[in-house]
């Protein structure tokens, strides 16, 4: 007839039940012994008609009305009676009862009798209560489904777990459609004959917030009778957190090996790189130090040899011996230079050269480096353009490439070096990053070696990348080549066929300037002078030699063994024309400070630095900024004489053009107008020399070492042009320029930069700013000023 929906009801059958029969027509109640027992009624009340009010006799006052209503329903024709109620028996105790009954209808569907069973469920009620609390606390939702029905009996927690509004029953589709496709129904409407359990996990989408959750289902299939009917009794609970953790763990496990491996690789790689770079650093320092000392020694030898030349004049054999010795010194100095380059202590000193001539010059060196198994062929195009590049670096690059080639060929093969003109067009430039279209001189080094496989060809320029076994090669060669080429505004490209050979092409930008011909230092008139030179050198022998050399040239020489002493000399007020100082000096005060102080006291004094070992104090970005005079050790007497004259000339004194070293194709025309220039440059030497140039050109210059000073000046005076270094301490050059323009809109902007890229800015003035590439010379400044002032001012 009717099915009881209480999930635990199948337990009721086990308990002994009392029974009743309510005759509706006669309005009489019959009860049995157990019923009487449960109600605490006397046995005499059994099996005899009782007033129907007896049914309600023991019912607890709080449940009485509810029960009357329920019974009324039955008497009215309702089919289901399944109620729990409390009864209070004579001894005062309260028990929970569960009554299950049905109405028997007559032919006209009129209710005739209301019969049922009564069971004591006090214990079960308590257990249920505990269970309900536990389920609610544990987030467990209970359900019971009787097959064939359209709805499932559920607990509130069940509804909540699925994001549904709490209801005592839910339609099966309402529940099942929350389950993601592929997981099967949460409430199956059909079960297989073998299925016994309801265990399962489902990915559901909550009804209220559409959040995905993992829901576990556990329960039992209770089969009823032989007709195939069944009941599903079970619970669900949320396992999303566990699932997430599970997945994470699985992913971690899967990738654990990989991650450990990559972690190891990274460490190893980092360690290797660190070792390598430390090695490099150490070696660099070592070689740098050695080279420096070596240079000093060479200086002494060379210098004395020079002096000796005068003493052995007339003695032919002695002179020959002297020449040999001098040549050896020259070679030694070249070696030192290479060592310095290796230790990266050599500043780039670009010169306009003809690569053809250079390549012919290194032919000898290459043959020695490559050994006899390698055939070298050199092809130099006619009409070769000039290029502006550091000679030593080109030689190094060639050496590196040659050695790589030799190794690739295993000491046996052909090496071809070609030099020619090339034009890189817009299409080429578009295809290659950081390449400007234009005219280039290209050096191509080709070998017949094993070639480079396509997979690693991208990496060959990376520092520390080497295919040579451990211990052979540093992996730095190609990266140095790359660095130097890029620094020189060029481009390098590798072509390789694995098993066939490799070609490395170095493109260096063409320069239209005339070649800086190295004046043959062995010959030519040596010009001296009568100015006063202050020599500052801590090495006694070197100092001695230098003093002799300079005195011989006719100059009046003062000496100091360190900066302090030099300053003392300055203090005396003696007039000095040139300070000749080693850059690296012991003691607290640096030579640059000396130079600055000298400038202050003696504005007309020139400063010439010398060093075998340059430091950042006068080198900017690896390149020697022009304007800072440096004479590298070791130098010949001729070189010294010429340099001194050059430096003295640059002070503004008229000079003969014979020893003009800066190969200017055109004389700087100079700006017709006298302009008020504000120079902002933090590098002392550069600033000093630039001021010099500007004043020589006839402009009024104010200088500032940083942005703050610059702004102060901008607030006091009016200027026409501002030349600002892009990388200033504290404020970027372009920022300063922007501020400057807002203060003085008529200002033209020139940016001085060592990096090639002008700063960009939103303002027009910045966009129209002129770039002055370091190292710049007088003519560069002139050009820049001209360009800057040809642009209409912003008003």
């Amino acid at each position, binding site marked *: 007839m009717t099915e009881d929906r209480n999930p635990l009801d199948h337990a009721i059958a086990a308990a002994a039940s009392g029974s009743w029969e309510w005759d509706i027509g006669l309005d009489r109640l019959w009860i049995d012994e157990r019923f009487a027992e449960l109600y605490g009624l006397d046995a005499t009340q059994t099996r005899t008609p009782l007033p129907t009010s007896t049914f309600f006799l023991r019912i607890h006052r709080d449940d009485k009305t509810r029960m*009357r209503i329920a019974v009324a329903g039955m008497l009215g024709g309702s089919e289901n009676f399944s109620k729990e109620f409390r009864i209070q028996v004579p001894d005062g105790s309260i028990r929970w009862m569960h009554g299950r009954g049905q109405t028997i209808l007559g032919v006209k569907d009129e209710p005739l009798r209301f019969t049922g069973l009564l069971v004591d469920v006090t214990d079960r009620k308590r257990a249920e209560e505990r269970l309900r609390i536990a389920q609610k606390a544990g987030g467990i939702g209970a359900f019971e489904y009787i097959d064939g029905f359209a709805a499932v009996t559920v607990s509130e927690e069940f509804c909540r777990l699925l994001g549904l509004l709490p209801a005592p*029953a839910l339609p099966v589709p309402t529940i099942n459609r929350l389950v993601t496709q592929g997981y099967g129904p949460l409430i199956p409407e059909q079960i297989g004959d073998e299925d016994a359990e309801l265990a399962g996990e489902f990915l559901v989408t909550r009804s209220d917030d559409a959040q995905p959750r993992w829901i576990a289902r556990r329960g039992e299939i209770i089969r009823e009778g032989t007709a195939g009917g069944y009941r599903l009794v079970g619970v669900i609970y949320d396992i999303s957190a566990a699932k997430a953790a599970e997945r994470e763990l699985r992913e971690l496990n899967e990738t654990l090996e990989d991650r450990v491996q990559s972690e190891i690789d990274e460490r190893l790689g980092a360690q290797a790189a660190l070792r390598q770079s430390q090695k490099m650093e150490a070696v660099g320092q070592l070689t740098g130090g050695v080279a420096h000392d070596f240079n000093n020694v060479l200086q002494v030898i060379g210098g004395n040899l020079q002096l000796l030349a005068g003493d052995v004049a007339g003695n032919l054999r002695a002179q020959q011996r002297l020449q040999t010795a001098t040549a050896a010194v020259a070679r030694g100095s070249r070696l030192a230079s290479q060592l310095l380059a290796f230790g990266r202590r050599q500043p780039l000193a670009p010169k306009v050269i003809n690569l053809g001539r250079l390549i012919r010059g290194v032919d000898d060196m290459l043959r020695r480096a490559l050994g006899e198994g390698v055939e070298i062929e050199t092809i130099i195009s006619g009409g070769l353009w000039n290029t502006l590049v550091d000679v030593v670096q080109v030689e190094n690059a060639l050496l590196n490439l040659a050695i790589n080639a030799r190794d690739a060929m295993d000491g046996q093969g052909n090496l071809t070096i070609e030099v020619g003109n090339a034009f890189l067009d817009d299409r080429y430039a578009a295809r290659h990053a950081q390449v400007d279209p234009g005219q280039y001189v290209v050096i191509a080094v080709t070998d017949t070696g094993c070639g480079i496989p396509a997979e690693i060809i991208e990496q060959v320029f990376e520092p520390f990348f080497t295919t040579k076994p451990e211990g052979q090669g540093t992996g730095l060669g190609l990266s140095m080549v790359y660095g130097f080429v890029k620094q020189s505004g060029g481009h390098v490209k590798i072509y390789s066929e694995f098993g066939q050979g490799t070609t490395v092409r170095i493109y260096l930008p063409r320069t239209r300037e005339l070649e800086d011909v190295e004046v043959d230092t062995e010959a030519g008139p040596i010009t001296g002078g009568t100015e006063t030179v202050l020599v500052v050198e801590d090495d006694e022998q070197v100092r001695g030699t230098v003093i002799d050399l300079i005195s011989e040239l006719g100059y009046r020489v003062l000496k100091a063994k360190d900066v302090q002493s030099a300053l003392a000399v300055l203090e005396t007020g003696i007039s000095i024309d040139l300070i000749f100082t080693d850059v690296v000096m012991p003691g607290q005060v640096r030579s640059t400070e000396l130079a600055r102080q000298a400038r202050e006291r003696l504005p007309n004094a020139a400063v010439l630095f010398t060093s075998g070992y340059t430091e950042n104090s006068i080198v900017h970005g690896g390149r020697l900024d022009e304007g800072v005079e440096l004479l590298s050790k070791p130098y010949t007497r001729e070189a010294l004489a010429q340099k001194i004259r050059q430096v003295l000339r640059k002070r503004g004194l008229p000079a003969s053009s014979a020893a003009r070293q800066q190969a200017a194709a055109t004389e700087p025309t100079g700006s017709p107008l006298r302009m008020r220039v504000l120079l902002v440059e933090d590098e002392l030497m550069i600033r000093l020399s630039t001021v010099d140039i500007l004043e020589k050109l006839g402009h009024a210059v104010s200088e500032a070492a940083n942005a703050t000073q610059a702004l102060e000046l901008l607030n006091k005076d009016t200027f026409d042009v501002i030349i600002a270094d892009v990388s200033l301490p504290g404020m970027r050059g372009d920022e300063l320029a922007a501020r400057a323009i807002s203060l003085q809109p008529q200002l033209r902007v020139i940016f001085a930069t060592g990096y090639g890229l002008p700063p960009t800015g939103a303002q027009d003035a910045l966009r129209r700013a002129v770039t002055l590439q370091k190292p710049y010379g007088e003519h560069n400044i002139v050009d820049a000023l001209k360009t800057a002032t040809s642009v209409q001012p912003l008003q």
Partner: protein
Amino acid sequence: MNPEILLDELERDALTEIVNIGVSRAAANLRKMVGQQVLLSVPSIDIVSQTRAARLIGEREVSKLVAVRQDFKGAFSGRALLIFPHEKSLELVRAVTRDELNAAELVEMEHEALTETGNIILNSCLATMANMLRQSLTMTIPVVIRGDSATLFEVWRDAPADAPVLFLYIDFTVRDRNISGYIAMLMNIPSLVAVKELIAAFIERVVGSDD
């Protein structure tokens, strides 16, 4: 929502019983029509706001439904629906025509049969409830509609926006025939006080003068 107009436990019990009686009668009639066992669930009754009713309906939304709809008016007004998943409707028709029609006739009779079945079930249910409350209701002619929940449970235009809704859900099954469906009743209760009074009167009749 004003708690005063909600039903208290006793009133809910009483209303449940009244619905039970009505649905029992309907089930008995369905039994007669199909000649087989019909099982009923305990009705779930709730008075909710229209918003919540809409949500409850939305949750029970099944995509394709067939339903017989009957509106009623009186001391309380509303809409009763006898709903089947559409794939079950033909099965019901076969059941109520006692397997006497062939396939073609079945399809022809489907609309007919559904209407009549719905008529009997909904009428007996509503009429019984009306009798219990000693009221009379006017019923409309039942109508078969197909669609989703939105179509079936359209909110009536004459219901004030804030009027609460009695949401009743009871499901039944004809086991051997694999037919199941549910009866849903939406009642707008413009004056819940009036209904509460009716229920109170019912309770009193039933409970009598008691301790």
